[in-house]
C-alpha cells in the first residue's frame, strides 16, 4: 500500500514471513556496553610507538607565512618530529573542492598544511609530533612562525564589493557559486496579488559541537606499505578513496576503520586538512600517529554552517491561496570550498527547498555563495532544510497574519494534496509521495490546538504572552547519485551488505553504513533477524571497516535506514533462500516446502521443526560430503542497492512549538514541542522518535542559542564551551512525536530516512511561535539565533 491513510493503528504490510522486530521499538542491545563504559572510541585506542600530534594553527584570519623556526621546539622532551606545509606537500597533493553539476562553481587549491598563506583562523600550518599530547603542546609553545597579517574578508555583505580584497586573485572574485531560478510569472504575480509580505531572515553561523571531538589514528606499516586509519568518521570508503588519491597509494593499501563515534551530525563526513596531515605524518614517520582535536581546536577547525542572509517575499490572494515565493540568498562560507562535498550544496538546497510543501506555481530564487576568511563551512545535519523551512514558514505566517487566517488553516489550504503524487515541485524537486494533509490533521489533534489557542487568549489578558508556531517541512533522504556522483565526486550513493550464516547458526551482517548513535546497528539487526528468520540475539552487525564490508557510502543525507537497510534486506533474503536450498538438500525435500522460523528450519505447512540452523551450519560447512555432488553451499551473500527511482526520496512532517516570551526580559521559555513525522515504513518507532527529538533540539540550538561570533578582524570570540551555547537539558521542552507511514515504492523495505527532519522544522516552528507570542506588539524577529536582546529591540525596550 503506497498511499497515506488516516486509519488509526494501521500496520503496513509486513515484508517478512514472521515479522517480529521490524516496526517494533526493539531496544539497542549492542548499546549496553556503552552504558558500562566499555565503548571503543578512537581516543580509547593506544598502540605501541604511537605519537601524538598537535597543530600550530593560524591565530589570525589571513596571513602570509614567513619563516618557521622549530629548533627550540625540536629539543623539547619527547618530540618526535615537526613538519611544515612545504614538507607535507611533497607527499600529499592539494585538492580543489568543486562539483561538476554545480555549474560555474570555483574554489582554490587547499593543502593539508598551509603553504605560503593561511586563510582562516585555525588553519593548520605546522605539525608537532611527540610522545604525549602534553609534550607536544609544550613543544608547540616554542614553535615560532614569522607571519605577516593580511587583510581579511569578514563580512558577507561586502565580500563582492570592488574594494574588498579578493582572497584568491586567480579566481577573479570572492564568488564561489551562484545560481538563479525563475519559474512562472513572479513579477506579474507580485504586482497583482491581493496580499504580499516580505522579511529579511538572518541565520547565524554555527557548528556541530560533537561531544567526541574529531579524531583519528593513522598508522603506516613501512614493511607492508599499508596505511591503516582508525577514524571517527561517517564514510570510511570515501576516506579510503581520498587517502589513496591524495597520497598516491593503491586502494588495496589503505584500510579505514570506524569504531564507536561520539556523535557526528555531518561534522565528521568531510575530509579535513588535518585528516590528511595526520595521515601524512604516519607515512613520513612509519608509526601510529594519533590526532584528537581539543575543544578549542574544534571550534575553529570543525566545519561551520548556515551563515545566510535571505530576503524573502510571498504573494497570496485574498482567499488564502499562496501564489508565489521569491528569495535572495546570500551565504558566506570559508576561503575554500570544503572537500569533497563542497560548500555550495547548502545554498543550493535552500534554492531547491524554499516553498517545498506548497503548490504555488511561481518561484524565483537567487543564490550567491561567497568566500570569507573564516572557518570553512559544509554539510551539517539538515543542510539547508532548516533555513529553507524557516524562511518559507515565516513568510506563510506573515501572509496568514495579513489575511487574518489561522496558520494551520492556511497550510491545509496550500500544501500539495495527499492525492496529488507523484508531483514535481515548482523548484524542480521530484516528490514521490508525501502526506502533508494527514500530518497537519494529526498534529492539530495531538497538540489540542483549539485548547492552546484558548489558553493563549486567556493568558494574554493577564499580560502573559504565549505563542504557537507551526512548520510544515520536507526533507530529502535516500539520495541517488544525483547528489554527488553526477558531479564527479567518488561518493557512493549505493550500498552493500554481506550476510553470513556462521557454523553455529549466528548471522553476521557486514555493512559500511556505520553507527554514530542513531541506531544503525539496531535496525540492521532487526531487518536481518526478520528477513532470515532468527532471534535478534543471534544477529551480529559489523560496520565501518573497508577491509571487511562491501563498498558503500556510509551515513549521510539520512540514507542509513532506507539505503543501507534495503541492502541488508536483500542480502538477508538471498541468504535465507540459500539456507532453504541447503535445507532442502539436507532434508531431501523441496526448498519451497520449508521456511526459517526463529533459528530453525520448519515445515511451511504444519510448522514442524525439522532442523536447527546450527545443525544446518555444521553440515553445510563441515559435511559437504553428505550433500549432492553438484550442490554449492553459499552461506555468505552480498547484495547492493542503489536508489534510482528519484534523485531523492523526500519525506515530510510538521512541527509545532509552544512558547512563552517574557516581554520584560526577552527570555523565551519553550513549553512544549510536537512533531509528526512521515519517514515511510518505520523500522523502530522508538529510534525514530529519538532521532526526531535529538534533531529538534539541535535545530533549537541554532534558533535560540548557537552562533560563532566573530570580531572585525575575523577572529572567533566565543570558541569555547562556556561562551558558545549548546542546548542543555533545563531549557529544552518535552517533545511529543507521532508517525504517519507512507512507504516508498523505490525499495522493498519502503523505509525513508528520519535523521534530519527534526532539525529541518524546529527553527521554523520556534521562531514562528515567538513571533506569534509577539503578535500583540506588532513586531517580528527573524534573525537567528533569536536572543533576548533581539526580542527586547523588536519590542522597543532597548535600542
Amino acid at each position, binding site marked *: 500500500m503506497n498511499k497515506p491513510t488516516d486509519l488509526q493503528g494501521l500496520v503496513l504490510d509486513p515484508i517478512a514471513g514472521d515479522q517480529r522486530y521490524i516496526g517494533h521499538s526493539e531496544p539497542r542491545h549492542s548499546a549496553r556496553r556503552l552504558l558500562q563504559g566499555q565503548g571503543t572510541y578512537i581516543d580509547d585506542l593506544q598502540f605501541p610507538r604511537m605519537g601524538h600530534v598537535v597543530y600550530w594553527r593560524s591565530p589570525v584570519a589571513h596571513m602570509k607565512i614567513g619563516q618557521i623556526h622549530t629548533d627550540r621546539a625540536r629539543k623539547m622532551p619527547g618530540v618526535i618530529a615537526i613538519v611544515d606545509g612545504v614538507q607535507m606537500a611533497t607527499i600529499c597533493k592539494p585538492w580543489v573542492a568543486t562539483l561538476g553539476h554545480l555549474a560555474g562553481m570555483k574554489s582554490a587549491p587547499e593543502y593539508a598544511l598551509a603553504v605560503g598563506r593561511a586563510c582562516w583562523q585555525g588553519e593548520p600550518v605546522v605539525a608537532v609530533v611527540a610522545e*604525549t*599530547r602534553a609534550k607536544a603542546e609544550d613543544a608547540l*609553545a616554542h614553535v615560532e612562525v614569522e607571519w605577516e597579517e593580511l587583510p581579511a574578508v569578514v563580512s558577507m555583505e561586502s565580500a563582492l564589493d570592488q574594494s574588498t580584497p579578493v582572497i584568491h586573485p586567480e579566481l577573479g572574485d570572492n564568488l564561489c557559486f551562484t545560481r538563479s531560478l525563475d519559474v512562472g510569472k513572479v513579477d506579474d504575480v507580485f504586482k497583482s496579488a491581493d496580499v504580499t509580505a516580505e522579511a529579511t531572515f538572518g541565520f547565524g553561523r554555527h557548528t556541530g559541537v560533537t561531544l567526541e571531538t574529531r579524531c583519528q589514528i593513522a598508522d603506516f606499516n613501512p614493511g607492508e606499505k599499508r596505511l591503516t586509519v582508525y577514524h571517527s568518521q561517517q564514510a570510511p570508503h570515501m576516506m579510503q578513496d581520498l587517502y589513496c588519491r591524495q597520497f598516491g597509494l593503491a586502494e588495496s593499501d589503505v584500510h579505514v576503520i570506524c569504531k564507536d563515534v561520539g556523535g557526528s551530525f555531518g561534522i565528521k563526513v568531510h575530509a579535513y586538512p588535518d585528516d590528511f596531515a595526520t595521515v601524512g605524518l604516519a607515512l613520513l614517520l612509519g608509526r601510529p600517529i594519533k590526532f584528537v582535536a581539543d575543544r578549542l581546536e574544534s571550534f575553529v577547525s570543525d566545519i561551520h554552517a548556515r551563515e545566510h542572509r535571505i530576503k524573502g517575499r510571498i504573494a497570496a490572494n485574498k482567499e488564502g491561496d499562496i501564489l508565489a515565493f521569491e528569495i535572495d540568498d546570500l551565504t558566506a562560507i570559508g576561503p575554500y570550498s570544503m572537500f569533497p562535498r563542497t560548500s555550495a550544496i547548502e545554498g543550493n538546497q535552500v534554492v531547491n527547498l524554499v516553498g517545498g510543501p506548497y503548490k504555488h506555481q511561481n518561484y524565483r530564487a537567487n543564490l550567491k555563495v561567497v568566500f570569507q576568511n573564516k572557518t570553512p563551512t559544509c554539510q551539517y545535519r539538515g543542510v539547508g532544510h532548516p533555513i529553507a523551512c524557516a524562511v518559507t514558514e515565516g513568510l506563510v505566517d506573515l501572509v496568514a497574519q495579513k489575511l487574518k487566517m489561522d496558520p494551520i488553516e492556511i497550510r491545509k489550504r496550500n500544501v500539495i494534496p495527499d492525492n496529488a503524487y507523484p508531483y514535481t515541485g515548482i523548484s524542480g524537486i521530484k516528490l514521490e509521495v508525501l502526506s502533508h494533509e494527514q500530518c497537519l490533521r494529526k498534529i492539530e489533534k495531538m497538540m489540542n490546538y483549539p485548547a492552546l489557542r484558548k489558553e493563549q487568549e486567556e493568558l494574554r489578558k493577564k499580560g502573559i504572552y504565549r505563542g504557537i508556531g507551526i512548520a510544515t517541512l520536507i526533507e530529502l533522504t535516500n539520495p541517488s547519485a544525483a547528489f554527488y556522483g553526477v558531479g564527479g565526486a567518488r561518493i557512493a550513493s549505493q550500498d552493500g551488505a554481506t550476510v553470513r550464516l556462521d557454523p553455529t547458526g549466528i548471522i553476521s551482517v557486514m555493512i559500511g553504513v556505520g553507527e554514530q548513535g542513531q541506531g544503525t546497528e539496531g535496525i540492521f539487526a532487526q531487518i536481518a533477524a526478520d528477513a532470515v528468520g532468527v532471534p535478534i540475539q543471534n544477529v551480529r552487525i559489523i560496520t565501518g571497516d573497508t577491509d571487511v564490508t562491501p563498498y558503500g557510502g556510509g551515513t549521510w543525507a539520512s540514507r542509513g535506514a532506507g539505503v543501507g537497510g534495503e541492502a541488508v534486506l536483500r542480502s538477508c533474503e538471498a541468504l535465507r533462500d540459500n539456507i532453504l536450498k541447503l535445507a532442502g538438500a539436507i532434508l531431501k525435500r523441496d526448498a519451497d516446502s520449508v521456511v526459517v522460523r526463529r533459528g530453525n528450519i520448519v515445515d511451511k505447512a504444519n510448522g514442524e521443526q525439522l532442523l536447527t540452523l546450527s545443525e544446518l551450519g555444521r553440515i553445510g560447512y563441515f559435511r559437504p560430503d553428505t550433500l549432492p555432488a553438484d550442490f554449492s553451499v553459499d552461506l555468505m551473500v552480498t547484495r547492493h542497492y542503489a536508489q534510482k527511482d528519484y534523485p531523492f526520496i523526500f519525506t515530510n512532517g510538521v512541527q509545532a512549538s509552544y512558547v512563552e516570551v517574557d516581554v520584560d526580559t526577552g527570555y523565551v521559555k519553550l513549553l512544549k514541542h510536537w512533531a509528526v513525522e512521515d519517514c515511510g515504513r518505520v523500522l523502530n518507532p522508538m529510534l525514530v522518535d529519538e532521532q526526531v527529538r535529538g534533531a529538534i533540539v539541535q535545530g533549537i540550538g541554532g534558533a535560540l542559542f548557537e552562533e560563532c*561570533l566573530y570580531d572585525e578582524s575575523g577572529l572567533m570570540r566565543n570558541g569555547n564551551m562556556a561562551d558558545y*551555547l549548546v*542546548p542543555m537539558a533545563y531549557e529544552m521542552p518535552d517533545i511529543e512525536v507521532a508517525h504517519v507511514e507512507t512507504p516508498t515504492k523505490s525499495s522493498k523495505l519502503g523505509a525513508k530516512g528520519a535523521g534530519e527532519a527534526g532539525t529541518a522544522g524546529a527553527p521554523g516552528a520556534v521562531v514562528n511561535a515567538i513571533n506569534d507570542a509577539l503578535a500583540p506588539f506588532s513586531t517580528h524577529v527573524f534573525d537567528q539565533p533569536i*536572543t*533576548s*536582546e533581539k526580542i527586547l529591540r523588536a519590542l522597543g525596550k*532597548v535600542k
Partner: protein
Amino acid sequence: MKAAAFDYVKAKNLVEALALLSEHGEDARLIAGGQTLLATLNLRLSEPSILIDITAVSELKGISVRGNMLRIGALVTHTEIESSDLIAQHAPLLKEAAPHIAHRAIRNLGTWGGSLAYGDPAAEWPACSLALDAIMIIQGPNGVRKVNAKDFFIDLYTTTLQADEILVASEIPLASSNQEHSFQELARRHGDYAAVGLAALIRTDKGKVQTCRLAFFSVAAIPTMASKAQAFIEGKSIDAALIQQAVNLAREEIETLADITNSQETKTHLLGVLLERALTKMMP
C-alpha cells in the same frame, strides 16, 4: 588542552600555607576547589610554577555561629552551603543562590573562598557577600585583618588580597526576623554565568525599610551596589511608585559593561527589570 607543567605541594596547616605562599610569590597559585584555576590551566591561560593545595587546612573549614555572626570558612563548598541547616536559617539568601552556581559536580568542589578571592563580577557569591554585609577575614604573614565586602572587590578579577595573603573565612550578620531577601538571576542557560543578577536584602521596621542592599552582578567589572537606589529606598515603604523610582535611579547610577551577547543598554534595561521583581517580591 593539557596544562603546562607545575609543581604541587599540599599545606598541612595555615602557617605552612602562608609560608609557602611567601616563599614562591607570584609564581604560586593556591588551589582549593580548583574549578576556576584548573580550567584556566587546562586552557594554558595561566602557567604558575607551583600549586599550593590548601584543602587540608582545617582553619579554613566549617560553618559555625559565633555570637551574632555566621562564620563561613573559605573551604566550604557550594554544595555544603546549599545543604546546610545553619545557612538555611541564618543566611537564606545563600541557600537560594547556591543552585544557580554552575552545576552539581562543580558545586561539590568549588568553594566560598575561591569564588570570593577570584572576584568574578559575574559570580554569585561576591554579590551575595555585598548584600549580606559580609566581613572578609584575611590572614597574611603579618597577622589577621578584616575587610568589609564593599571594600574587598576593587577591579575585574581583583580583590584587596595581597599575593602573600589567604582568605580564611567570612562573617555574616545572622539573618534577623525583620529581614527579607530576593535573589534574581537571568542566564541564557541554567548554571551559566548570569546575563544580569541581583542579590537583594532589606530590613524593615514597622513597614519602612531600614536597611537596603542591592548588589548586582554581571553588570560591570566588579559586583556593584546601587547605592543611590539603596539610599532612596531606606526610610520609606515599598510601593509601586517607589519601585519605579528606584528602578530609574539604579539604571541611571550603574555604568554597565557589555558582554559577548548583551549590550550596555540591554544590561541597563535588565537590571531594572530584576530590581522591580526583587522589590515586588520583598514588598510586605
